[in-house]
């Protein structure tokens, strides 16, 4: 049980003029182990103007994400982000691999655990028998050996849980925080 991978799912969202984020740590079955969220940050008008387009990535990566990871109990084995966050190039310096997981409609690979490398940072991973493989996108700093190790952990967790589902839970929890019933 001690060796089972711990996955951290992070989402930052913008609500009105404020930003907030949530980090969910799960075990290999997707059961929550810890959940942290930030209070909304509202940049001033001057900050918005001077930071420009760099404001949102900076807030998400440098401010919100680092705060939550620092507060988290224990360190995760994998940090999973929405694919859109990685598309712009994630500049974090975490020790654990940072990646995004997406469902696909690709044809299943031959056997469970098989991978198909689409690029230096992207691979298809067959999680379960007969299902469509998952697309795994890694952050730029994750080298190839680290990617292979991360794929093994994903495979182990994916046997018990839907690897993409916890992100929906983090998003739902944040929505519940900003828009309570």
């Amino acid at each position, binding site marked *: 049980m001690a060796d089972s991978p711990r996955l951290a799912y992070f989402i930052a969202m913008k609500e009105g003029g404020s930003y907030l984020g949530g980090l969910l740590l799960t075990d290999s079955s997707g059961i929550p182990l810890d*959940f942290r969220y930030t209070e909304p940050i509202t940049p001033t008008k001057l*900050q918005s103007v001077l930071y420009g387009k760099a404001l949102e990535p900076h807030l998400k990566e440098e401010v919100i994400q680092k705060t939550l990871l620092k507060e988290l109990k224990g360190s995760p084995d994998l940090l999973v982000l929405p694919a859109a966050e990685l598309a712009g190039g994630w500049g974090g310096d975490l020790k654990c691999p940072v990646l995004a997981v997406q469902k696909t409609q690709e044809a299943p690979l031959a056997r469970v655990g098989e991978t198909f490398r689409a690029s230096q940072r992207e691979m298809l991973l067959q999680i379960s028998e007969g299902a469509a493989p998952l697309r795994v996108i890694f952050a730029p700093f994750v080298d190839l050996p680290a990617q292979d190790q991360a794929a093994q952990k994903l495979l182990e967790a994916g046997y018990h849980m839907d690897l993409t589902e916890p992100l929906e839970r983090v998003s739902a929890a944040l929505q519940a925080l900003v828009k309570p019933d």
Partner: protein
Amino acid sequence: MLGKLSNAVSDLTETLRRIFSSPDTHEVNPAIAAHGTHRIPPLSVQGSAPTYRFDLQTLGSDLSFTGHLCDGEVRMEGKLQHEAAWASWATGAKVLEMEILEQHRSRGLEIPALPRAAQPRHAEIGSFQTRGRPSFDAFLRPGLRSEGLALPAPRSRRDLELALRVPLAVKGQGIKDLPKAQWMRLGLQLVRSTGENIRNLEVLGLYRIPAKGVLTMKHDGRTDRLMLELGKEAMGAERRPFVLARRKDDRSLVSCFLEEG
């Protein structure tokens, strides 16, 4: 008797006379009556002294404004001006003398020529004397302000219960791909636990869920997932295989945990 008869005759006569007499005519004057003209006397106005009159009375004002001379010093200098052109023109003229009644004496009149050019007059315009006043002080050095542009780290909060309340989706394991021996063992345990005839059961899925701490459970038939709402007891609880089935007769759900091994 005769008298009455004569009266009756006279009445009859009078009656007949009235009947056959011509109707009364009245004379109408056809002439249009001329309207007479009347003289309207002109309106005459007769002045009368008003009962009341208004007399002007000078009142002293409460406020008096006194002018103050500014201290701008202006010196006025008198200068003699000489106009020679008119004098020369006058001296060149000759007075016309009218010699009345002196015949055969005529003399041409000389009209002095106008000055060919006007003599420019030179007038010195006194220079304005002004006194400079300092109007603006030197610009003060602007104060520097430092706006904190760094985005401070937000406060973080921990709320595990909130995360547990969000339904957790547990995907089913492919029961159709299970080996036949394992499938038989699964069916046997299901029948033993629920007491149902296996032919009346439709197995929906095999899931690994926490053995305790499950508060609510809902089956999502579209994605074939179990949506679990968990309590704190679920953290660290053992995951055990769980079978969910539906009775074919009344469509109700039955379930049981399976013994591993």
